[in-house]
């Protein structure tokens, strides 16, 4: 009895392994076919994105990638001569972005990456392609927070070590009771259960969370502009050629309406008012 069970389990395992390899084999074949038809000189481009920010850069449970950054990355890659199936997305968590670029692990980083001077010491940027502001997310029925100073008596949540968290501590509301978690989704638990009153980060990211299906109607953006975050595309320091090409791609995307369309697609449901496309300033 026991032996036959083990045998059955082993058979299932073998069958699963076979189907898995079969799948892997066929998709590999498709990818290489696509590469061949698009020209053998280029194979793949690796782009760093966020995997955990709905609306901006998200890896869905079925392995697909969605979000505004993903659409921008796909468009830029197309302009550089890569078809969508030649793009390999790699997770670029905030603290690792500079090293991924410097080590050549990724060609580009499109990961809600704010342009600033310290970062420019290690990498170059193209863009900006998007202007975000630090904002607050509160429960939909909460009207007690209308400006940053209101936070001084409130419980606030943000991500460990993030620029937004530091901004609150040093400038906006030093007396706010700040809880820091590794990810924004941890904050949402507390926000929903009234353990925290507000969640702060870039409005683009907040809008993504607010418009997720499971969160619809629960939260709203306060609509403050607490800082200016110009998102750029990170690339290897000194690669002027690539920088010029990516800048041209961003300009083209903004000119031909694809930018506007990507905004509508990714941020539309939350009622989030985005800023118009910023002028490309890097590398000029």
């Amino acid at each position, binding site marked *: 009895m026991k032996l036959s069970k083990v045998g059955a389990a082993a058979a299932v395992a073998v069958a699963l392994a076979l189907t898995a390899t079969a799948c892997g084999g066929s998709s590999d074949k498709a990818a290489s076919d696509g590469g061949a038809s698009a020209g053998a000189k280029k194979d793949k481009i690796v782009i760093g994105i966020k995997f955990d920010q709905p609306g901006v850069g998200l890896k869905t449970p079925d392995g697909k990638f969605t979000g505004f950054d993903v659409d921008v990355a796909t468009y830029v890659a197309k302009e550089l001569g890569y078809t969508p199936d030649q793009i390999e997305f790699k997770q670029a968590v905030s603290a690792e972005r500079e090293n991924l670029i410097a080590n050549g692990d990724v060609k580009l980083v499109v990961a809600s990456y704010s342009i600033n001077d310290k970062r420019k010491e290690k990498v170059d940027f193209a863009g900006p392609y998007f202007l975000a502001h630090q904002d607050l997310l509160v429960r939909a029925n909460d009207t007690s927070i209308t400006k940053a100073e209101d936070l001084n008596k409130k419980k606030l949540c943000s991500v460990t*070590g993030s620029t937004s968290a530091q901004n609150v501590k040093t400038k906006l509301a030093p007396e706010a009771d*700040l809880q820091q978690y590794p990810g924004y989704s941890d904050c949402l638990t*507390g926000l929903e259960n009234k353990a925290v009153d507000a969640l702060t980060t870039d409005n683009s990211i907040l809008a993504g969370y607010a418009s997720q299906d499971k969160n619809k109607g629960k939260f709203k953006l306060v609509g403050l502009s607490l800082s200016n975050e110009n998102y750029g595309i990170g690339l290897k320091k000194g690669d002027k050629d690539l920088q010029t090409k990516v800048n041209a791609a961003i300009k083209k995307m903004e000119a031909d309406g694809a930018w506007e369309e990507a905004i509508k697609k990714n941020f539309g449901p939350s009622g989030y008012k985005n800023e118009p496309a910023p002028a490309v300033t890097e590398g000029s």
Partner: protein
Amino acid sequence: MFDFLDSGQYDLLGAFWVTVQLTLYSAVGSLIWGTVLAGMRVSPVPLMRGFAAAYINVVRNIPLTVLIIGCSLGLNQTLGITLGGDTFKDIGFRLAVLGFTAYTGTFVCEALRSGINTVPVGQAEASRALGLSFVQTLTLIVLPQAFRAVVAPLANVLIALTKNTTVAAAIGVAEASLLMKEMVENEPQALFAVFGIFALGFVLLTLPTGLLLGWVAKRVAVKR
């Protein structure tokens, strides 16, 4: 290379002081809790033995990160338990101590139980023959000898605990590794310098602990 330290933006000593406090409170807590658990594990009451065995096997096999985040997200954010703290700073610290005590207590208990095994059975039998109760036998005869035998293993547990306190960063306790995350985010140009500083900090905390307790272990060991 280390010029970012002069900006006054980072309270390095303050962050390590929180690490030390976390370690000390959790060490005291887990020593007490671990001793109680060890007492239960060798007690003559089957229910207590069963509880202690089950607790240890469950808790020590849960990843510490899961335990600590569970304390914060489950107890605080969902159930609203604050352990008497008003601000997230206090609540986070207390929840972290609770989590570390629950976790490290299991290792203290198992170390102590191995110490109890070094005490010859005759000692317990003799004390029972003298009319001492189980609690008296344990606290007067067995545990004092057991503790002296396991100073070195307990030192290992303490060193592991010191390093484990970095997990508290996951629930926003402002200890060393949280500051490290902040510095990595702000100073990407000095990544290795930042890592080096924090690695050195932890070596400075744990190395003397090991040396001191190693010396104590030699001094107090029961020669058999």
